């Protein structure tokens, strides 16, 4: 009896050993934890949100959850708050990313020239990107306070304005204010990535250009810009995806106000699903982002593959 048990046990162990010895077996085993994580944390929620977006599911109502096809999406297109949020998101993302790229490029060019306290400056300039966004957004909330805004105080004391600026009170100012925070936060990411790209460009190219009589302006457009293009494209697309899905800055600073002029997809989805209890509609809002982000990601992957 005992011996049969032992032999059974033994053969099992042996089989496991064989499996791990084969290259294929070991490969699958090693990749399994990552796959399980991806399935559990990304694939499952994603499929669930697709299911929710096609249903009339309400928060905390068991009898809800009828399949209604594209009903949520069609209703959304008819909703003025949603249409405004689509415009807000595009405005927020494209304006912010444009300025992050321009200013990040400038930052990279300057950092590339600096030799004095090089590492100190590089470290310091990364800070806005390292600090958790919700914390830095709280700091900005004080900077934009209607009474205690430091910006207003400085401008008043310089005599540049007569009255305090209401940073978050009008649709235009509020959008500009949150874009400024996003730009402030995102510049270091562009700056450091582009700087890394610049340092791979061979110095000889610059020397050759200089001999040919190119000034700094020409050297940038004829040498740096084209050679930096791959890095620039990847960083820009990556940032675009991130900015599209932004949540914290708006949630902390304006909660979508004034009059929904700063609602983005993510904040509107949170308001609709969690606060108003319409899970189905909320899921549909966040999935509206998906095609746009997918296009961005496909472009990015294609480009990377072509380079390989």
């Amino acid at each position: 009896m005992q011996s049969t048990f032992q032999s059974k046990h033994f053969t099992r162990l042996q089989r496991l050993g064989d499996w791990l010895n084969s290259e294929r077996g070991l490969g699958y085993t090693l990749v399994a934890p990552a796959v399980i994580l991806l399935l559990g944390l990304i694939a499952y929620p994603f499929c669930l949100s697709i299911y929710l977006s096609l249903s009339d599911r309400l928060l905390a109502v068991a009898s809800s959850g009828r399949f209604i096809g594209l009903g949520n999406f069609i209703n959304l297109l008819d909703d003025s708050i949603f249409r405004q949020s689509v415009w807000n998101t595009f405005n927020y993302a494209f304006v912010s990313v444009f300025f992050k790229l321009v200013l990040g490029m400038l930052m990279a060019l300057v950092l590339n020239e600096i030799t004095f306290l090089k590492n100190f400056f590089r470290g310091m300039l990364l800070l806005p990107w390292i600090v958790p966004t919700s914390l830095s957004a709280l700091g900005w909330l004080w900077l934009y306070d209607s009474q205690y805004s430091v910006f207003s105080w400085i401008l008043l004391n310089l005599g540049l304005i007569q009255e305090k600026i209401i940073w978050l009170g009008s649709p235009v100012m509020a959008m500009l204010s949150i874009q400024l925070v996003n730009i402030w936060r995102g510049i270091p990411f562009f700056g450091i990535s582009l700087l890394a790209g610049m340092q791979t460009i061979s110095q000889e190219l610059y020397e050759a250009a200089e001999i040919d009589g190119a000034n700094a302006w020409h050297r940038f457009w004829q040498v740096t810009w084209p050679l930096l293009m791959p890095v620039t494209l990847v960083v820009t697309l990556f940032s675009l995806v991130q900015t599209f899905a932004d949540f914290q800055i708006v949630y902390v600073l304006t909660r979508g106000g004034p009059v929904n002029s700063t609602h983005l997809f993510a904040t509107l989805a949170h308001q609709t699903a969690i606060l108003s209890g319409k899970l189905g509609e909320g899921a549909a809002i966040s999935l509206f982002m998906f095609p746009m982000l997918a296009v961005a990601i496909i472009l990015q992957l294609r480009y990377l593959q072509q380079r390989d």
Partner: protein
Amino acid sequence: MEQIDRSLVKRLQEGKMTRREFIVTAAAAGVSLSGIAGILASCAPTPTATAVPVAPKPAGTVAPPKPVVTDKLRMKLRSSFITEGNEVLKVVAQQWGKENGVSVEVDLAGMGDLQTIAGTAAETGAGPDIVEVFVNTPHVYAEKLADMSDVANELGAKFGGWYDLAKEACVPASGKWIGLPRFYAAHCIVYRADLFKQVGHDKPAETWDELLAIGKKLKEKKLPPLGFSLAHAVGDGSNFVYSMLWSFGGREVDKDGKTVVINSAETAKAIDFVRTLFQETMTPAVLQWTDAENNRAFVSGEVAVTNNASSIWWQARNVQSIVGAPKNAVDLFNGTQHALYPAGPAGRLLFTEMMSSIVFSYSKNVDAAKAFLRYLNDRPQMDPWVQANLTFCTPLLKGYEELPLMPWNSIPPLRPFKAAAQYGHLPGYPSTNGRAAGEAFNKWIVHDMFAKACTGTSTKDAIVWAEEQLKKIYK
């Protein structure tokens, strides 16, 4: 104990100890809660506060059987702006745990966080046993909540009955209590009597028209303006816009909870009035004001009138009580007074900030949670908390109105807050469709209707926009 008591009181009086530290230390030393509240009230840094009689223990209560708790009793409660109240609350909860040999976990959070916590708990069927939720949100989770009728009826019978407001929050069409009304933050108009005198007014405004006239005079004399939040401010902003809508006779929805009736001459009048009030008397900063910004604006002397609970008065009092406080802080506090909301053409109806305790039916501790809530809402525990909160937290039970210990009876500047709940209503009034009303509230439809109208949209377009949105919600 006497000795500990006296040395502590001395340190508190000499300012060597904060009021929060005092509460925690005294409770740890075994001083009874009502004792603490009495000491706090008599040490209040305002000359107008009188000693508060300590609540008598109700006689003849039979000790209930000890509750059984699986793991521990977990609760997420609303934190009060008046921080002493929070300390009392924590001590009370732990005391119940000690008396019953049960472990109790208390977290205090703001309104927004509580809503997210409750939503997640309702959906996942896991989380805290008790959550305090805002206005009529219990209706959103109705299906997942334990029936609280027994506790609610008991408390109602014991303490003079509930205000209608409490029923709007917690009683759906079924007639069951799905939550236990916990407290409301009584609201008033906070105004600077010293500035009113400068423009020839000895009394606060009785009607909104009168307040408009006073505001115009303040502006003419270049004195600080009026300010009522027109932004997404959950408490003070909602208080202003809903109260204006109702006081002028406008309603979002009919009694049936289905027919949207926002498009009315009354709504138009309310909007036109608010626009005039905004353009002619207010600071433009109201377009971004959060619940905290109007407090700061008033305490820093930048506005002469706003709407608020007693927290502005409390802040002003704290600022001027600091040794060496500037004279203008003292003057500001002395000039700060409260008044009942002005009446509109349709009377005086107030949106009222209130919280209810809900117990999720997934909880394994429903009975223990009810036992805890009975204890929490009984006089010996309620009284010190109510006293420490200076009308910021007041039970929705009519029996508390006349008690001498109520801050509005014991502290003269707080008198106008008395029984404010009698004017109180919640979004969706007069319907009981709390779920749809909650959705409209969370989408800021009424807030934005007024804000749009004050920033360039015509009255008609603002109403049509709100009507279109409300029709989608109340279908």
